């Protein structure tokens, strides 16, 4: 599907997809969105690129190894729920920093957990779609 329209469009759309997905991820705690939806959106963006430029090209360009991404995402989520144990609280207790960043909002372990979800979802969707569209 390498057509000029698609190629140009995807070059413009991909950053938009990624940016919007990050936006959804970070404000998910207060408005609709969150890690899962954000991750799906980012993955769909990358998949679109893969449809246009081919899977191999996309993997080479971004050095993506989907199973590795899943592992990273899972470990981020796991670490986030383990953190409270070190301060003697039960598993997964939400711990928050006091500072509030613009655009991102409050930082805390639930956010980190959501980031983990985000990464896992990207890995999973890329894994499935790449494999399928490849062969």
């Amino acid at each position: 599907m390498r057509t000029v329209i698609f190629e140009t469009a995807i070059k413009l759309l991909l950053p938009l997809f990624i940016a919007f997905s990050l936006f959804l991820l970070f404000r998910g705690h207060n408005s609709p969105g969150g890690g899962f939806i954000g991750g799906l959106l980012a993955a769909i963006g990358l998949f679109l690129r893969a449809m246009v430029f081919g899977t191999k090209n996309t993997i080479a360009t971004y050095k993506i190894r989907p199973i590795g991404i899943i592992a990273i995402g899972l470990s981020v989520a796991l670490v986030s729920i383990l953190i409270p144990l070190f301060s003697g609280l039960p598993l997964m207790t939400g711990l928050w920093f006091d500072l509030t960043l613009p655009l991102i909002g409050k930082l805390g372990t639930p956010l980190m957990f959501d980031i983990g979800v985000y990464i896992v979802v990207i890995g999973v969707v890329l894994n499935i779609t790449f494999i399928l569209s490849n062969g």
Partner: protein
Amino acid sequence: MQNVYLLSVLLIPLLTAITILFLWGKVVAQKIVGAISSILYLFAAIMLFNQALTSGMAIENVGNWPIGFGIVLVVDQLSAIFLMLCAILSVVAFWYGSSFIESKASLSIFLPVYFFLLFGLSGAFMAGDIFNLYVWFEVMLVSSFVLFTIGASRSQLEASLKYVTINVVSSALFLIGIGILYGLTGTLNMAMLGKLLPELQNQTLATVGASFFLISFGIKAAIFPLFFWLPATYHTAPIGFTALVVALLTKVGIYSLIRFFTIIYPLQGTPIQPILLVLAAFTMVVGVFGAAAQTDFRRILSFHIVSQIGYMIMGIAIYTPLAIAGALFFVVHNVLVKTNLFFIAGLVGKLFGTYKLKELGGIMQKLPFVAILFAISAFSLTGIPPLTGFWGKYLLAKGGFETGNTLITIVTAVSLGVSLLTLFSMTKIWNEAFWKPFPNICGDLEPSTNFRSILKAYPGMLVSIFVLTAIILVISFFPNSSIEWCMSAAENIINRDMYINGILQHN
């Protein structure tokens, strides 16, 4: 950090799985990680078991929310028994699997998924929240889907498609049940449900809700008439991959049935009780007849699982402490014995290249130690005293006869009769595969193997079979403490207030 063992049991598998994923492609390193963490897991489970026995319950209030609003992970004695069983099995199944599987490609899939499965199992046994249980079920099921399809042979794929579909239906029914319970009580916590559900105005509706769980868990546990997926699936995949699934999947169903129909919705006196009793009788009979009809080593064993499930269901349905203790003991017995039989079947299949009884033979002459190992487990399965099966049978029969109820007495009598048929079908394997001379049907010579060559080629398989046999023998001849644990767990679970108050009044 008071619940260090509980958390270890839950998180070690996940951590291991992630580590193994990071080590993608390096099979030796993955195996080492797996071996170490399975031992750690067993250790943690033993400590947790001890903790549950001494202090009653271990509760982890995840997220530190007030009880009922977050998710609690609870390990009471019932869970502890299952977790312990799961831990023992996980170690031997890991040894067996990693010795059984020779292809590197298969191992690299098997190892991470194996630990994900273990993660799901641990979670399921400690879930204190009904929806959480659903999630763990799914973790477990998806892992089992993957394990059943590794290798992707024709029969595996055929069977998995049915397996997946039926489990999807079961999960859907589970979800609907959760929805109904939530729609009636507005809570998902098991203890709170246990408190609110019996107080509900419309008890008929509560029972209708419970029936969804009966069907859903019944499919998982493979009770009549919902068992079809099991005999269709279990014999297709090489046992090295699926040992843990084969051993524990149905038992998770049993566990959930026990949990649900004691804590959340006490079975005693409800219309479901007689229905369950009748289903138990049918499960036993149909399963054992199914086994009698088969002529394939693994298929006979698969059908037997169904039959044995009937005994456990019967124990639950009788609903006295002794009967539930019998059911629990039966679970312990059956998991160990059945897994060992499957292990031996796997070994035989590996050596002879077939599972068909027609093409097998002469194992007694050629490999007497395999015959002895098989005989111990097979006779235990059929309830020949004083092997483990006998104790289970005895407890259940005593529990059943004690009630004096006519229906229960009939079902109990059926259960005794079924054990004769069990014997019949086990001797079928024994006669054909072990006693009969090697038939030489395919023209190829009898495989030349002996103890030493097997030990050299498949050390893990042999060791795990020996370990399991040793455990079976220990429980057979010193059943006292295991029976005691089962009794105590059964008492605790029947006195629901203990569990409910224990959780609701957790600080």
